[in-house]
């Protein structure tokens, strides 16, 4: 059973069998508008929590995507390079950004679950 968590910076992370999949939330893609460019990290890169790891650019602006947790990048979603608009179509599904091999999954406990994230978004709007 995967653990799903959310950051205050509007990333989602799903941890399953030591692999964390990371993307941006549906709320984030709606705020950004039409995504036209995505920059992904290199496979093998070791990242720490809250490190800027990827970039998402909409027609309006560029935003960093921060890693919600420490780990080593094992996969990146190459489909986003040719088809950045996938982020607008399916932000919390097909448009994942990267996968990390995670050593300390407990660190996710500090992040929000879906109910807490939705309350956080509601509060901010």
């Amino acid at each position: 059973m995967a653990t799903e968590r959310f950051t205050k910076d509007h990333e989602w992370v799903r941890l399953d069998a030591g692999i964390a999949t990371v993307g941006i939330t549906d709320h984030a893609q709606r705020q950004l508008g039409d995504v036209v460019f995505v920059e992904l990290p290199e496979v093998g890169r070791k990242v720490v929590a809250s490190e800027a790891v990827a970039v998402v650019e909409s027609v309006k602006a560029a935003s960093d995507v921060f890693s919600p947790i420490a780990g080593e990048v094992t996969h990146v979603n190459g489909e986003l390079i040719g088809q950045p608009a996938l982020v607008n179509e399916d932000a919390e599904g097909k448009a994942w950004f990267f996968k990390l091999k995670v050593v300390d999954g407990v660190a996710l406990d500090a992040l929000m679950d879906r109910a807490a994230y939705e309350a956080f978004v509601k509060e901010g709007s």
Partner: protein
Amino acid sequence: MGLAPASDQPLKRTPLSAQHLTLGAKMVPFAGYEMPVHYPLGILKEHLHTRGQAGLFDVSHMGQVCLIGPDHATTAAALERLLPADIANLRPGQQRYSQLLNDAGGIIDDLMVTRPASAADDGRLFLVVNAARKEVDCAHIAARLPAGVQLVPAADRALLAVQGPEAARILAALCPEAPRLAFMQARSAPIGGIECHISRSGYTGEDGFEISVAAEHAEALWQLLLNDDAIQPIGLGARDSLRLEAGLCLYGHDIDETTSPVEAGLAWSMQKRRRSEGGFPGANRIQDELANGPKRKRVGIRPDGRAPAREGTEIRALLGDHLGVVTSGGFGPSVGAPIAMGYVAADRAEVGTPVNLMVRGKALAGAVVPLPFVPHRYIPRS
């Protein structure tokens, strides 16, 4: 990822504010106003819709000002002391683009100047200036007008723009006089019975009209224009990408008090008599730049890859020396790729010159390209 926080400062609203909210616009602060950045369609589709059919823009935040003098020659001479365009030879119903200049030849603001078509308005000039600059401009102009010429802000007017290949057809149905205007011509005429001042101009590179209307009739006019199936409301986001593709300057970004019109590639807006006679602020610098060339030039730049080079991106030569900075940059929806404008040293401004764009610490390859990125589709005088 970071999303911009909301601002708490009190913002002014245009007479069309309620319309934007009804249409589901996302409102953002811009030049002291709460303005629609996009509607539910989104920036990309709004942009493409404008180029494909027609877009309706609320640009009521812009400053509308009237100069009133005893006759055209007097009012034109007063304004010519502040800018380098030929205003004296403007015919009735003709419009010109120009720039208010400081004593160093830098640009205080860029603006549209229109001589009204009606003989009853002789001695008047209509100015449209940038929202963020209207207080600065009005103070600057008012302090330099001779006795007998007055500046009167038209604060109770809205400004709408209809832009795109369907604009003339849409206006023709409501106002037979409108499609008879050529690019940069203007006249007063009713649109569906609402008295308006219409010019054939805009900020998208497309054919289109800008319509000044009394604030109290703005909503009725807005709704009337939106009745046509081919038109969509368009926000400031697409307005920015449209003008960037058209190679048009945005004040405070591509031009400011440090840039001269010659550096900015706007020498076309200085007519022959003014270039030779001078008599405008900064004439020494500008005449020198016209004769000997400016030190730097505004150019178009295409990054080779997919990554946009935004405003502030450093432009370097391939060997690493600093050439200049991107002043406007983003994704061009009609181009289908990132596009940018910026200033480079004049000897590196030639089309085809390879450059590096420093994006997030990495050098991205690009090249100087001709402006505009998308051909203008204005309707010339026949």
